């Protein structure tokens, strides 16, 4: 069985926010909620780096562990989904999540948060696949159609990868090899005369 994961290649993300828009459009995400966001560290400074982040579909998901009504469930593919019918809007999943993935349409007095919304890996919810009910509550169910999440599919630089963990890491590993890099995955250290080897042009590919 596949183990679905997202991976954002910080060397490729150009902060275009295309993933955010793709997600909002594909899933008809409620006003005020952004299931995915791009965060730029060192914005406008040397070493500016952007990462696109959404629900990471944790194996040991904190949201699942703290939910008082137990509405979360994990699909066979390791995708963390939730049943909005049982959600009481307590906000505990938001407290627990390290990535700020669960969001609520409101934060009014008396804890009136509404029902939690988060990235579904484009896998919908507990309703029948691609039914109008599922579409209205959770958005698209691309997984049921054999497609990957829209954010990753639309990523212009292919920074955002989604899919089976093994395949995602194979792609990334290949990139790292072609980058010809001491430090491998993410970047050089300060020891290498401050040269950025992310895009080693002497290499033929990637």
């Amino acid at each position, binding site marked *: 069985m596949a183990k679905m994961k997202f991976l954002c290649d910080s060397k490729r993300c150009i902060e275009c926010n295309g993933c955010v828009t793709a997600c909002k459009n594909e899933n008809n995400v409620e006003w005020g909620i952004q299931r995915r*966001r791009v965060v730029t560290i060192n914005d406008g400074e040397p070493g500016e780096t952007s990462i696109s982040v959404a629900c990471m579909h944790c194996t040991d998901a904190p949201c699942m562990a703290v939910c008082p009504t137990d509405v979360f469930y994990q699909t066979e593919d390791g995708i963390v989904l939730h049943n909005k019918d049982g959600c009481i809007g307590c*906000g505990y999943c938001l407290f*627990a999540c390290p990535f700020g993935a669960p969001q609520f349409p409101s934060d009014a007095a008396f804890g009136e948060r509404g029902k939690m919304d988060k990235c579904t890996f484009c896998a919908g919810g507990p309703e029948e696949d691609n039914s109008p009910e599922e579409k209205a509550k959770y958005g698209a169910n691309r997984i049921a159609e054999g497609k990957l999440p829209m954010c990753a599919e639309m990523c212009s630089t292919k920074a955002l990868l989604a899919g089976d963990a093994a395949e995602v890491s194979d792609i990334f590993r290949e990139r790292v090899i072609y980058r010809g890099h001491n430090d491998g995955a993410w970047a*050089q250290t300060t020891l290498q005369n401050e040269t950025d080897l992310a895009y080693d042009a002497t290499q033929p590919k990637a």
Partner: protein
Amino acid sequence: MIPHKWPSVTLPFHTLLLPLLALTLAFTLLFSGLTQASNSSEARPAERKVASFAGPEYWRAIQQGEAGQTQSQTREANQLINVQGEEWRQWRNQWVTPAGAYAMGGTLAVLLLFYILVGQNKLDSPRTGSTVERWKRFDRAMHWTVATLFIILAISGLTLLYGKFFLRAALGDSLWGNYATACKLAHNYLGPIFVVALLVMIIKWMKHNFFNSTDIKWFMQGGGMVGKTHPSAGYMNGGEKAWFWVLTIAGLVVCISGLVMDFPNFDQSRETMQLANLIHGSVSLLLIAASFGHIYIGTAGTEGALEGMKSGHVDETWAKQHHDLWYHEVKNEGSDKQ
């Protein structure tokens, strides 16, 4: 930082592209210049530069909650990772949840054992049939308002903490979902009413509840819970006073921490609400455990105690046995008036 390698690239594709690139660059610079000019009046916040471009330090900084820029308007969206939640999860799931269950179960077990071994604190002599007024209508209304709200809040709160372990399976998804929603709504809307009711009760009854030397003697004799002795007590005995202060202090802590979570519209951070949740959970669980003791003593534990809060009047025998100083006070007042 422009990569150093760029100028040395001499592929034909790039040479073709170079004029185009230059043109684009010129445009970009032009527009960025314009936007820069329009923004120059704003003071740019001093940003701490994260060392190394996406290197180990970068990831360490992100893991420690380094914030950046984002287009998302959600609160705290500029942080990629906030590990505080994991700490909260551990505290809540590994400590507060089991400890609360032990505290409540332990208290119930002790009370049951006490009831079996010692039994009810009976009246020593038969009832006289004449009564004295102990609680006025307003006092009783206040007590039962607070008590009813306390019980509803306790049940709804306990449901939200422990319900998922057995109630979901027992009720089925649909019923469980509706019941949990009702619990959350009850908790969030009745909570603030409880705060007001509790405050009124604290203010109204505080004057009776300051400790004095009689209470020390009362505690030294264990409050007469075991055996035949009945230590002297005024209108309130040492135990009642202790419960009053437990309820006052713990109750206020629970109220304040509850309000922090009940009104997320004041922009408090997740960390504040996590802390409030832990305080609220642990203190209210202790308070619920303590309330079992209060409920036991007020009902099954003491003969004739519940009458006082039901009708407002207690039998003279009961008054003499449990609150002798107060009884004599009332009698003297009565005789003075006559």
